[in-house]
């Protein structure tokens, strides 16, 4: 065998070796690799599913991250005696504008309960949220991309990449856990260690720099009145956050939620009464376990509301 033939043979062995190392490495990581606190591929599948699933729901929950991390549609469905389908259409930093509400309505079955459960946060009427960047980012993704993420990613989730935090927090509990439920649009999440003040400062800085939009609040109320005329059943609630968070939000927004509650009640729109919670992991989002309890409460109140 001459030198050139030898090199070619070595090259073949190396290609084979790369494939072996790659496959073995993947198997090792799948079976015994470090735990992933948040699976990125499941996250992508989760958001893609929110955008393209069919209008088959009786109840759609809409709002920001407090909503999609706080209200579990599966638990709501279980509380109803008859078969009801519920979906969480929450997006990060969602602003309650006409576009988002229209999209949420599109998920509802044309016949049936046609119920829109809207989680209101003070932040939803602030300029940054009203841009609805997260929702629009997904809304504008090409259909092919959404199809791939929705249908292929759940099967490839074992190939999801690690975050650096997964690696340098190995063996500790300092992580941000997220378990995505694409079928219901809900995320179980918890950030460890729990720090009920960690979200306060960023929110405060943001509120100090900007102002709650009265125009957005008025447009929201007009839209609610319009939807009510169109036959939608609308129920509002303020999703729990910590006492400090609610107080700060009320202080900066001029008590916008209370004003909203009074004005929408005059329109005949019902509210589910909620209180601040001690069980948040950052002051803004409920701890995974307490979301079950909260979702049960919401379901019961919703049943009462619908039976009125």
């Amino acid at each position, binding site marked *: 065998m001459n030198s050139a033939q030898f090199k070619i043979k070595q*090259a073949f062995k190396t290609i084979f070796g*790369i494939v072996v190392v790659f496959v073995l490495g993947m198997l090792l990581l799948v079976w015994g690799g470090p735990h992933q606190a948040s699976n990125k591929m499941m996250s992508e599948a989760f958001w893609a599913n929110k955008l393209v699933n069919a209008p088959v729901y009786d109840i759609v929950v809409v709002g920001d991250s407090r909503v999609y991390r706080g209200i579990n549609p599966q638990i709501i469905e279980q509380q109803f005696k008859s078969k009801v389908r519920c979906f969480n259409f929450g997006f990060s930093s969602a602003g309650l504008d006409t576009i988002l509400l229209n999209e949420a309505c599109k998920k509802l079955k044309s016949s049936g309960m046609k119920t829109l459960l809207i989680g209101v946060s003070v932040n939803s009427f602030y300029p940054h949220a009203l841009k609805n960047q997260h929702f629009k980012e997904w809304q504008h993704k090409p259909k092919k991309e959404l199809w791939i993420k929705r249908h292929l990613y759940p099967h490839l989730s074992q190939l999801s990449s690690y975050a*650096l935090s997964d690696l340098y927090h190995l063996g500790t509990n300092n992580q941000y856990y997220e378990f995505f439920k694409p079928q219901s649009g809900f995320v179980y999440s918890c950030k460890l260690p729990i720090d009920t003040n960690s979200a306060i400062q960023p929110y405060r800085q943001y509120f100090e720099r900007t102002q709650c939009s009265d125009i957005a609040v008025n447009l929201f109320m007009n839209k609610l009145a319009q939807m009510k005329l169109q036959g939608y059943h609308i129920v509002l609630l303020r999703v729990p956050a910590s006492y400090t968070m609610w107080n700060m939000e009320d202080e900066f927004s001029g008590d916008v939620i209370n004003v909203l509650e009074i004005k929408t009640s005059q329109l005949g729109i019902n509210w589910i009464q909620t209180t601040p919670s001690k069980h948040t992991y950052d002051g803004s989002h409920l701890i995974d376990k307490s979301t079950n309890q909260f979702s049960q409460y919401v379901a019961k109140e919703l049943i009462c509301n619908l039976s009125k």
Partner: protein
Amino acid sequence: MTFNSIPFVLFVLLFFLVWARIKQNNTHKWLWIVLMSSVFYAWWDWRFLIILFATGAIDYYTGNKIIKNPQYKKVWLWVSLGSNILSLVAFKYSAWLAGLFDQMFHTQVAQALPEFTLVVPVGISFYTFNSMSYTIDLYRGKAKTADSLLHFFAFISFFPHLVAGPIIRAKDILGQLSRNATVNYLQILNGVKIIIWGFFQKMVLADNLAVFVNEKFQDVNATSDSLTWWLCMLGFTFQIYFDFNGYSTIARGLAKCCGIHFKLNFNQPYLALSFRSFWQKWHISLSSFFKEYVYKSLGGNKGNRWQTEINKWITMLVSGIWHGANLTFLFWGAIHAFFLTIESLLKAKLRIKIPSFFSAFVVMLGVVLAWVFFRANTLGDAIYVLEKMLIFNSNIEVKTVLLSNVFIWLVVSLVVVYGPRKVNVFGLQKQVVVQSLFWGLLLLSCIYLHGPEQQFIYFQF
């Protein structure tokens, strides 16, 4: 279809599966390249194909005319250049120019523009330049005509270089494609290694750095800390290098697996000791295009010093605006032109020898500051960021910086760019086990350590 996507992996497997069987067939291989490259491009939007093949057909036709009717060759050259420039202006610059016009004269031209002008076809700047170089080379007698329209379409649409370069001249690729190149395992291995290295640069380094950079530039006013902006701009400096070099490297690797050699597009630009050298090492195919077809056409350095400097400025401004329809890119080009002028003036006046580490530092500093204009969304944002960087005011604890993700990726980037040159990843010990482990693990890192999927930065150009 981007290189770092699942559809592309399936696409490439299909391409090479068939390519291995038909590469010896002189008709089928050209057809296969055109067909698959069309699928690759149409994945974005099938209508883009019309522009690609329409401008290509004009260039092929005018190219033939240049050779057959030499007395009218200048006319045919202008027809070719005109059609390419027109398509660039229509699809890439019209909305921007109309916006500027409206601002200046308080008109409403932008609203009257047809809808198609609002969407920039992916990679239009690259394939029009590929196509233009063909007719210019024919005009200058530096190339031969393509054998057929099919061959020409294969050259302009060849998927590895279609949407983000490297910009390739017809003479460099048509000859290689015509040959019945046999590709052995050694060439495949080299191709595979280059591809893995490209993916590592793009998916692991560039995409992880992008997280921090994108976050900061989304709302520049939210960050006023100087150290954060320096970290961010260093992050972007490496992000754009690994992003674009990653793409070019993957393109080279793919071409190599087809038995085609693409020239190097980046040659360690961040080790340059002068701005002139930086431009000889950065995006080499574009720099040489501008040098050959713009700078030299203007007279190059044949006139007096000031004429040379003016030619340099025009070339750099054209290069800036080629990158995007925004004043920020024009400023980026102007800043580099300014650096080049200062450098040549200093070189003429100063006779002292400057230590190489100092030259490298100054060049790097200039490049980092200039990238601010390249990355910022508006001139206002760029000035804000520069102000924050240059008037130093930081309250961030060193510990916070050291523990941040961006810092960790910056350290890895620094090791890759400035690490000892003797540890050349392509020349690692030849033992099968060492190489298999190294490249296998690098490939694994592309899967398990990659950042959030980002489109290649240069696709927008």
